[in-house]
């Protein structure tokens, strides 16, 4: 496996998914459907925990350190090197807090909302090829699936908003819906322009299509990443994605200082952790989608076995960008946000679709 950009880590046809590999390694594939199922569960367990571990690092530690760097501070530095063990301390702290449930909360919905928010994001990672063989499933409608499941999160936000019996939560929940509807359409339409390029919805194929060199000079190959082929679509998708995950300048559903904490105002202890987990997972899922359809997925210099490393680097780059915006960019007002979504991004995303069709037509 001699590396380089030219080597696609997941070649069409010979894709080996994680469950199959686990089945082979453990010998579970000899046990028929039951073994296959168990292998799939194991694979899902591995991928889920990988993502949760990343969130665990990001939430209590990395976010603090990054924000501190932007704002001239030091942040956590007492426990362990660079304060990294604050993760453990925070885990204990958050889990041992009292769970306060409002008297008038609409119980099943109130309890389900955090699980829906966190779960929907985790589901999305199932179809994302992370390189080094870490890829749970590769359905033909991968991209549509990922948009669909990440859209479920809005449901969780509405549930959290109305079931908390708090007016701030209600406003936050309503804002979340308005925002997600306004930005999901440009997001999907912009995603479609990638489909036009790649000619498929299958994630592995989209990655493979980006592996070929776009141009090459002085022996250096510039890969055919769609961010480079169509930067316009890339920027549109980035912007819509920030609204989709509710981060500055589009964090109106939470809007601290305005509506306290929006839909999550009444959540404490483990529920709070779950909602926050869901938010971070969504940022990472957004990063994962961007990395997959615009940044060549796990592609990068070095052997293909390093794919997962490159993939995580790309996700964290997107995460870093959200934190940068959070530190430096004000929040738009809700009416401005809706206006930008419907009058700006939607129009631009359709323009981009037509542009893409023309480019593809000319290239063909």
């Amino acid at each position, binding site marked *: 496996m001699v590396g380089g950009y030219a080597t696609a880590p997941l070649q069409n046809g010979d894709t080996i998914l994680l469950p199959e590999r686990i089945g082979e390694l453990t010998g579970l594939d000899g046990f028929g459907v039951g073994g296959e199922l168990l292998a799939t569960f194991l694979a899902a367990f591995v991928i889920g925990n990988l993502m949760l571990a990343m969130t665990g690092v990001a939430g209590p530690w990395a976010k603090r350190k990054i924000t501190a760097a932007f704002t001239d501070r030091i942040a956590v530095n007492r426990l362990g090197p660079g304060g990294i063990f604050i993760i453990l301390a925070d885990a204990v702290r958050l889990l041992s807090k009292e769970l306060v449930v409002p008297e008038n909360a609409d119980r099943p919905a109130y309890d389900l909302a955090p699980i829906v928010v966190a779960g929907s994001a985790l589901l999305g990672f199932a179809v994302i090829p992370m390189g080094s063989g870490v890829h749970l499933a590769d359905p033909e409608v991968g991209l549509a699936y990922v948009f669909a499941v990440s859209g479920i999160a809005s449901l969780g936000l509405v549930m959290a908003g109305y079931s908390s019996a708090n007016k701030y939560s209600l406003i936050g929940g309503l804002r979340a819906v308005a925002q997600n509807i306004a930005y999901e359409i440009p997001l999907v339409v912009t995603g479609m322009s990638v489909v036009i390029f790649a000619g498929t919805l299958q994630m592995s194929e989209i990655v493979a299509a980006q592996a070929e060199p776009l141009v090459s000079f002085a022996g250096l190959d510039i890969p055919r990443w769609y961010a480079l082929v169509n930067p316009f679509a890339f920027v549109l998708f980035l912007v819509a994605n920030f609204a989709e995950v509710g981060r500055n300048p589009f964090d*109106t559903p939470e809007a601290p*200082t305005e509506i306290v904490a929006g839909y999550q105002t009444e959540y404490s202890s483990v529920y709070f952790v779950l909602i926050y987990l869901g938010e971070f997972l969504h940022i990472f899922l957004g990063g994962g989608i961007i990395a997959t359809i615009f940044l060549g997925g796990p592609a990068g210099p070095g052997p293909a076995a390093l794919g997962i490393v490159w993939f995580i680097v790309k996700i964290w780059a997107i995460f870093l960008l959200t934190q940068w915006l959070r530190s*430096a960019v*004000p929040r*738009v*007002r809700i009416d401005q946000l809706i206006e930008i979504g419907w009058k700006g991004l939607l129009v631009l995303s359709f323009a981009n679709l037509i542009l893409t069709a023309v480019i593809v037509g000319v290239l063909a």
Partner: protein
Amino acid sequence: MSEQRQREPKGIDPEYDHLREDGVDEERLESLLSEYTLRRDEHENAPGFVIRPDDVQEVLALLRDEAGFDHLSCLTPQEYEDRYESILHLTKYANRTHEVTLVVQLPKHEPVCQTAEPVFRTADWHEREAFDLVGIEYEGHPDPRRILLPESWQGHPLTLDYDQEKPQVVSYTEHANPIQPDHREAESDTMFLNIGPHHPATHGVLHLETVLDGETVVDVDPDIGYLHRCEEQMCQNGTYRHQIIPYADRWDYTANLPNEWAVARAIEDLADIEVPEYAQILRTMSVEFGRMLGHFLAVSTFALDVYGDFTAIFQYGMRDREVVQDILEDLTGQRMMFYFFRLGGVAWDLPEPREEWIEKCRDFLDELPSKVDEYHDLLTGNEIFQLRTINTGVLEPEVAKDYGCTGPVARGSGIDYDVRRDDPYGYYDELEWDVVTEDGCDNHARVLVRLREVEESAKIIEQCLDLLEDWPEDERTVQSNVPRTLKPDAGTETYRTVEIAKGELGVYVRSDGSNSPARFKIRSPCFHNLSALPEMANGEYVADLIASLGSLDIVLGSVDR
């Protein structure tokens, strides 16, 4: 101790703090008010006229329309042994040294006065406070509720026969319940929302009773008083010499030093205390540092309201504030409650070695322009920030005057009014600096005013440092001789104002011949600036309500006193 540093006063300019040469034309006023004047009253700061309780509106309208007195700076209610008095302190936005005082004397058994609210909107809150604390009723007042104390409070704390020992036993049912389950009227499609008293954007304990129609603010009613400590009474219990100025630090606690001057100025005027020129320079310089403290915090917390999280710009504000605090700590020995002012001067000279401290200040001032540029890059130059702040929270100049708005709030509405220049005190009129105004009338203009005022403060400090550096060593008198026990003549009363970071802070003092004031009244700029909030927020989005509140830069310690 400060007393040991006292030396023979040198270089004192007795007229310095009493520049009244272009005062109001008394004869013209007398003839204008001849029909209404019962008799004249003696006030140190302005000609006083005693008028009838039912002539208040007419006289105010006459003074406003015929003589240009468009600023009802303060309303002082008080109780004497034989009567109540409601004193109106009027002045002009265009000419601060033109002052007139209207005294309404009310019988003991029935303290009822005509309301001034139809002429000056700002009288609304003034009169509510007067009713709350002293018990004077204002006939025709549109909203005669208590303002600082709870609705259910019994008695009026600043009356002479008020029993402080008596417990306030009030059952919970007598209180308005802010969390009662349903505020909704049948058929209404609005939502009642309590913003505060515990809310991230109220910058303290402020409660906004808000009615929302979707995201739009239909009505907002500020409910204040959570931090009320009856500072006025505490000041009345203290002695002039040392026990009042420290309280001033507790009013606007984000920029304390300018407050101290308000007290010092009023008492010095009352007792004819002179301040050495050298001390005036020290005062001027330290107060401008104090103003910077306030403005850095105002801009950074406003950014917090618009950005929504502890962001870079907030930390920039904290970073620069920290440097100023270090400088003031070296100067005063304190980081928050400075108590640097003494009657007749200040507590100490510059810390030794002087050169080192002056160097430290100069370093800060040298770096300031680049830091202010950072604010403009990150904050006022940001397109989204402009989208959020320009044309939101609009406060028209006429409305601002009606509500008695002062300070950066008024200057952001294009009102060229600054007590430092218009009624000069300290060393201000010897120095080169400008009053900053912006015509935007919106949230953006108020931020710009504050940022530009930081630069003006820097100019003032720089000139003061030059003066201090070259001041002859044997003429550095930091305090004049002030009697240890100060007993101004009985019956003298005065109302003096200074410009603090938030606007015009006024202090009314009346002496009864003892060594503590018989009446001490504080006119807080935050109080009046906040009263204009409904004008700025009604009909706007709830996000802009929060931004407008932030741009008013209120400090609840100063609002509630």
